[in-house]
């Protein structure tokens, strides 16, 4: 138990410092942009409608979507798209409070200021701003709490944040990680909020000593929070040899850890960008923002190559490899040796009572059934191909988190799910896989992809990764997944299980 916690706490300084840097940068820039905009809106009243409407509209875009949209818009992943989305998010409360705060200043004071001979700028600076100060600060505090909270969603676009705890923790059922992430984000929001409040009080009282103390405290808190970044910036010159990417499910976290282990043993310096959105990972690799990640041939075949035919496992693998190198310069460093396919699964008892063993057999029962799928599935070409090739019509399609699907079908809340063939929970919940006799779903061989130019930039990379070629069979992968998803083990422990097996086999060889 305590080991699980210690493991998470060891990650805290790194994640926290990234999260703090994102939040503070976004707030500083957001406030810097909002203030002049708010002043312009006060000076030119016709600007008020458009400015506030745009800011409100941005606010209505769900945080995750806004962050994810920045990736294609900017053509890159990581800090920049995340910080820009957060800047946009921070602006509404600052804008709105500055405008209303200044507009609410009593007419008498404006009249007095004008009557004494103040210019509009002097009036703003000496009368309106100081009198609106508490309202403006309240807006800044709201923005701070929002930004710190929403910054946890930076993880899927490749910016490390406290969200790394939450995303990977939810996927791998590591609730210690989720708790650490949430508590740290809440504590950070609270501390920043209190610091701003302290600065406000000191300024309002014009208490020099108190202000000095508050500034000192703020600087100390920021320095402490950002320390891991400050120290590493002073020590190394940025990017490590190899940046590994992972998507947002257990198997990916385990493989990411495994790749890091393998490369570090071979003497490479690595860094991992966890929990990337599915297409974010591919785009990031093509753009050389990450160097290595694991994808599946069927995913590339159906989603990026837009193919819906199924010429067989070997053909697809070789065509995918050729397409990757031709179109993107991406190399396949290894075929890991197992498939993680989309399969349709239902409870064994349910399948047997209906006498269903194949997807063909399911078609007649489908109109009275509920089907559960992960966030992506019903939007993917695989689903289009599956439903059209078999003529599948379900009573209802339910989208849910992939970690919840297995329990949902076992509990009878849905009748059929789109399971992943390597998931340990298929066996644990005693689910039956329905055969895809018409080959509507492509094969999903796990392949280790390497970014364009990475092999020439990092000599020896391909050879090191080659150690993983055909090294993991489906049983090994499934038991590693099961270790995390069902037995509550850690990702690193699961990766060690695979490494141990590899070493055992290597020793066993003649």
């Amino acid at each position, binding site marked *: 138990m305590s080991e699980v916690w210690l493991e998470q706490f060891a990650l805290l300084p790194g994640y926290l410092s990234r999260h703090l840097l994102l939040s503070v940068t976004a707030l500083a820039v957001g406030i810097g942009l909002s203030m002049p905009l708010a002043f312009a809106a006060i000076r030119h009243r016709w600007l008020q409608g458009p400015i506030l409407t745009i800011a409100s509209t941005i606010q209505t875009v769900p945080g995750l979507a806004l962050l994810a949209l920045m990736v294609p818009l900017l053509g890159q992943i990581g800090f920049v798209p995340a910080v820009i989305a957060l800047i946009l998010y921070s602006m509404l409360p600052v804008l709105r409070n500055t405008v209303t705060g200044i507009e609410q200043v009593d007419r008498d004071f404006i*009249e*007095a200021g004008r009557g*004494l001979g103040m210019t509009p700028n*002097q009036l703003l600076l000496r009368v309106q701003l100081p*009198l609106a*100060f508490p309202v403006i600060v309240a807006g800044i505090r709201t923005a701070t709490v929002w930004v710190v909270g929403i910054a946890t969603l930076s993880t899927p676009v490749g910016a490390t944040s406290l969200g790394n705890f939450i995303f990977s923790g939810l996927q791998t059922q590591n609730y210690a990680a989720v708790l650490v992430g949430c508590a740290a984000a809440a504590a950070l929001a609270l501390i920043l909020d209190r610091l701003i409040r302290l600065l406000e009080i000191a300024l309002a009282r014009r208490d020099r000593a108190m202000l000095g103390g508050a500034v000192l405290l703020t600087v100390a808190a920021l320095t402490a929070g950002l320390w891991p970044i400050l120290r590493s910036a002073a020590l190394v010159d940025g990017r490590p040899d190899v940046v590994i990417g992972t998507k947002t499910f257990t198997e990916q976290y385990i493989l990411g850890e495994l790749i890091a282990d393998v490369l570090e043993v071979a003497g490479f310096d690595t860094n991992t960008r966890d929990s990337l959105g599915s297409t974010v990972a591919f785009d990031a690799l093509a753009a050389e923002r990450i160097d290595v990640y694991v994808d599946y041939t069927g995913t590339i075949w159906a989603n990026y190559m837009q193919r819906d035919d199924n010429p067989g496992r070997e053909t697809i693998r070789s065509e995918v490899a050729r397409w990757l190198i031709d179109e993107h310069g991406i190399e396949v460093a290894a075929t890991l040796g197992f498939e993680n396919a989309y399969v349709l699964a239902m409870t064994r008892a349910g399948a047997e009572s209906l006498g269903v063993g194949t997807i063909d057999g399911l078609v007649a029962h489908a109109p009275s059934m509920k089907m559960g799928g992960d966030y992506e599935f019903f939007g993917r070409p695989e689903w289009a191909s599956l439903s059209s090739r078999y003529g599948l019509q379900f009573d209802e399609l339910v989208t849910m988190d992939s970690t919840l699907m297995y329990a949902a079908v076992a509990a009878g809340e849905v009748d059929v799910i789109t399971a992943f063939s390597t998931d340990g929970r298929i066996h644990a919940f005693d689910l039956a896989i329905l055969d895809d006799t018409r080959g509507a779903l492509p094969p999903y061989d796990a392949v280790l992809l390497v970014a364009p130019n990475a092999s020439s930039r990092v000599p020896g990379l391909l050879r090191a990764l080659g150690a993983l070629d055909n090294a993991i069979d489906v049983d090994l992968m499934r038991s590693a997944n099961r270790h995390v998803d069902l037995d509550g083990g850690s990702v690193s422990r699961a990766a060690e299980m695979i490494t141990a097996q590899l070493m055992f086999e290597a020793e066993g060889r003649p």
Partner: protein
Amino acid sequence: MVCDMIELEGVTKYYANASTPAVAEISLSVESGSLHVVLGESGSGKTTVLKMINRLVEMSSGRIRLDGEDIRAIDPIALRRRIGYAFQGVGLFPHMTVAENIAVVPRLLGWPGRAVSDRIDELLETMGLPPASFRGRYPRELSGGQRQRVGVARALAARSHVLLMDEPFGALDPITRDELQEELKKLQRSLGLTVVLVTHDVNEALLLADRIAVMKDGRLLGHDTPDRLLNAPPHPYVETLMAMPKRQAAKLAELASSRATGVS
């Protein structure tokens, strides 16, 4: 010779979307060193007249001269810094101390810090507010009368010789009001200030003014000394207006005399 400090000539103001003028064709002059009261009910246009003098409201037509100079030729910001301005509710800035409030205009004019500080002390002394205990106070820590004194000090800070006052004593209790009216009169005489004061209070007008301008519905119905307005009203409205203080005075005299006979 007496020179006219402020002259209004056919001054008219139409507010946007109004069919009748707020102020119609007003001409009057205020001699240097005198205190003129503009008297009228709310809506009579008296405050508009005052605000046109420092261009807080721009006139629609006519001409206003300050010390012989057409005010439209003066930059409005510079004009306002030359003219003291005090009004009801005072408008002291709540985020500034007494000293900072008084210092506003001198600082806008770029006076050196030493001169500003001396001027603050001098004005607080004049207003009977010991600088040592009042400089650092905030407006919320002052009584209504003290606030009004600081308001006047602020209006005079840049050594303006012209002071515009909009209902300055309206919000005060009768005793404080009486005190401040007396002080204002003394101050005006000793400093030779030219003052235009707007009020709806007939008694206040009669007690303070060298001359009273009576306004109704944007028109000037009389501009004369209190004595002449009281005894030879130029217009029935002025007569009605003056009837009230006369009645009050008669009643007071009656009370005083009956008391006197009662004792003797």
